[in-house]
């Protein structure tokens, strides 16, 4: 039963400065791939790599500056869940690529 009246969320200790840095970083990380794609600055593969790299960095920025993954009290269930999620995510992606290597249709 969540405590609606007292506010179940304690202050996460995010300062104005950290929110501002996070906000700016996330905007920059969004603009970079946009610029690269709109101006055809790189080859197809390089563009894909840039987009993926920016996406991963964006994910980290969100986690650290907005989700406060560092501030969690012990036991760090959120962190544990996140690590397991990343492991499973990598399994899904890498596993699919591996399994589908010899299963590509001509189309």
């Amino acid at each position, binding site marked *: *039963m969540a405590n609606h009246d007292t506010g179940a969320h304690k202050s996460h200790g995010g300062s104005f400065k950290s929110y501002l840095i996070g906000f700016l970083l996330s905007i920059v990380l969004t603009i970079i791939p946009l610029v690269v794609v709109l101006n055809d600055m790189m080859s197809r593969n390089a563009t894909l790599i840039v987009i993926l790299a920016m996406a991963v960095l964006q994910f980290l920025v969100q986690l650290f500056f907005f989700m406060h993954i560092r501030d969690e009290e012990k036991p760090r*269930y959120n962190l544990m869940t996140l690590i397991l999620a990343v492991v499973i995510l990598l399994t*899904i992606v890498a596993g699919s690529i*591996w399994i589908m*290597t010899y299963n590509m249709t001509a189309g």
Partner: protein
Amino acid sequence: MLDNLKEFASEFFVTGDPLILGAQVSIALTMIAIVIVLTYFKKWRWLWTEWLTTVDHKKIGIMYIIASLLMLFRGGVDALLMRTQLAMPELNFLEAEHYNQIFTTHGVIMILFMAMPLMFGLFNIIVPLQIGARDVAYPFLNSMSFWLFFWGAMLFNMSFVIGGSPDAGWLAYPPLSELSHSPGVGQNFYIWGIQISGIGSLATGINFIVTILKMRAPGMRLMKMPMFSWSVLSSCISIIFAFPILTVTLFLLFLDRFLGAHFFTLDGGGNPMMYINLIWMWGHPEVYIVVLPAFGIFSEVVAAFSRKKLFGYASMVFAMIAISVAAFFTWAHHFFTMGSGANVNAFFAVTTMIIAIPTGVKVFNWLFTMFRGKIQFTTPMMWAIAFIPCFVVGGMTGVLLSVAPADFQFHNSYFLIAHFHQVLIGGVVFGYFAGLYYWWPKMFGFKLNEHLGKWAFWFWNIGFYVCFMPQYLLGLMGMTRRINVYDFDMGWQPLNVVSTIGAFLMGIAFLFQVWQIAHSIKFHKKDTTGDSWGVGRTLEWSIPSPAPVYNFATIPVADERDWWWEEKERREQGIQPKAIPLEPIHMPKNSAIPFIKSLCWFTAGFGFVFNWLWIAIPGLIGVAICMLVRSFQYDTDYYIQVDEIKRTEAALRGAN
């Protein structure tokens, strides 16, 4: 006008099959009967306030169990129809198309609408009681989960009288499930029925993880927690990672069918094999999701009726968590024959064999728990004992299947059918029955009749082996799954007849269980102790049965494994528990939103099934309105005052 209407109706309703016509008539009659009974006894208000809008985890659990038993009936009838068709060669009892629909709905219903809700029902009723909580972490979300499941299941079940059932197998492999090969609405029913109930399952997974991590009684550290709660935690971990994969996969299939995308089509760059790869990433963890709680139930039942502590607690915990994580690394063994190459097959064969190790650890733990225990052969214990040999044999045929080169022979044969029915019936169904019998007195305050229960037990068990052992042989003789006719000269008839007899024995067993429940409702002896088996070890047995709405008047400090067992021993020695003063109890208020919102989802799903946006869009708007209304509700909780708790407790304990 009338002709138009006739034409519409003949397309809208499934026509031309006497079996389905019978079902349509009986559904209509049942619905009329329900309305008449509710109106005659003036029960509409009671139904609405006590059940449809409840957020009480115990009532939600009971609704889950009722729904799942109805689904067991539906799925069981499907099974009997199939077995009847296969009893004789070249029989024309079911048309090929109808047969396809029946094996598809049998699979979907048994896994998603029977096993899952039965499991969630037991989660709901037992977990909060077992860890000393007053409800789950998010009671409103819990009610939402149930109603999403319920309306999703209704949407799926409707398909056989309206529009036509899906017929592309229980996992709906493309290209068969694509618009090109299944232009009808059946596949749409499949997608939307599963999507809607799938959101509910995901929410339940989140709910129980938070409940278990955050709401345990003071002193109950994780390693002091009862084993069933551990199994629920491990199962929910798998749920939260597996169900999003299902949702995304089915959504992509929906895009293919609805918007003409090409994710899994044969043309336009699509790849149907990717669907098979993705769906098994959910499908494999799913089987562990349903079997892990069954392992938890066996751990509770075996310890209780052997009157011993569970052997190897820590190894059991380790095994469960190991299974729930390792479950994500074995999915390709479902399609060894797809042609992914030797390396892929070797890797997934090994991971599959590895997963047998923690399972073996658990089997030995149960055996050592029983070793030199004072075993009582009650119905829950009988199911637990019957489970062990059945599951071990099923598991070993699984290891046979995991050998990739051998799998090329077994794949898609009745050998496989026999294997997974043996682990799913022998593991999951036996487990949930054990749990249902064991905790029935906790839910309703009386035990089920043991005599009839034993009849049901023997019919189920004998029926099971008579039905499925011949199927192993049929598989080795070359009989493949999903065929509806076979020739005289195949030599499959004798074993098929035996198998059909076994299926009907299990059907009789189910009737015994229905009789058992009806008989026990009429002639039961009320349990007054709360610990009705007398061997309870964990917290749920320390409170009256059925539990009051707030579960625990005061929450005990449960700092030992098997706290209630230790507490009983202390009380026998004359050490009385320290009285904890009563305090007002904070409880969630009932809400109609989960019911209404899920009904809106059902409406939207129904609209998408027929591609009628004039129904789908209002349905989605309804969903959005429900969300908005809920966001502005602040008055969602209340307190039960001390004198009311005293009155309730006096009434419940006074019966002692």
